[in-house]
């Protein structure tokens, strides 16, 4: 019964979207975590989504999604001259993470909308299944 697979598919998408939300939250939380060197500064992270093909040979159509990895943004860090800062390096510079708050906010909205869509799919499929179970009663 392929309706049961819908729960797996939509569930995998909800997991992936919640990972995306977590990463976004982490980026936003660390948006102002300054550091005294480029190596130790927080860098914005982004999840990479990938389609899961259940088994190509059996002709199955069940395709969920998963997070295949999380990459760190290689964009340049923001360097600010503030010699009074306790974290300042020898030249008086501190380094800010390369988190773009606008990008993160749009990412968060997109993730939460996608999550909601998948919840709706699960609810509709549940209704379809329950009605099928009640058939003939």
């Amino acid at each position, binding site marked *: 019964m392929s309706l049961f697979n819908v729960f797996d598919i*939509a569930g995998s998408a909800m997991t992936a979207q919640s990972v995306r939300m977590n990463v976004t939250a982490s980026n936003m939380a660390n948006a102002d975590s300054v550091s005294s060197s480029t190596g130790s500064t927080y860098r914005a992270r982004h999840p990479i989504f990938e*389609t899961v093909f259940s088994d190509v040979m059996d002709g199955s*159509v069940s395709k969920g999604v998963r997070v295949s990895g999380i990459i760190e943004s290689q964009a340049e860090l923001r360097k600010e001259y503030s010699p009074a800062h306790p974290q300042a390096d020898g030249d008086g510079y501190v380094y800010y993470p390369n988190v773009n708050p606008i990008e993160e906010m749009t990412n968060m909205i997109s993730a939460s909308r996608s999550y909601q869509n998948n919840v709706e799919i699960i609810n509709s499929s549940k209704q379809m299944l329950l009605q099928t179970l009640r058939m003939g009663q």
Partner: protein
Amino acid sequence: MDNLFGIHATALKIRSSRAQLLASNIANADTPNYKARDIDFKQVLGAMAGDTANSKMDRTHAGHLDAHGTTANGADILYRTPNQSNLDGNTVDLHAERSAFMENTMMYQASLRFLNGKISGLQMAIRGEI
């Protein structure tokens, strides 16, 4: 007696496969390079009901390759033509997919309603009620 439920039993099977496909599309709405897929309901139903004019090409040898991949009940899975191309290669149009899923759900429920009607009609006949 086998024909009592007519096309609706087949339609339910195809509708549930289609629900799975559309759920895959919606689940992969944010996956780069994912190509949205769907089945042609009319063609599949025709093929399953024995309508040869609408059916697909036969695979007469085990070594023949399947052009598109098939669902569990043998339906050809086709690729959707995107209305608007995405930079990341994803062809899922979320609104189209959602409305297709909703339409599919309604049609599934319609088939269920027909089946329920047939079953209650049968039960009335068995009990001898009018």
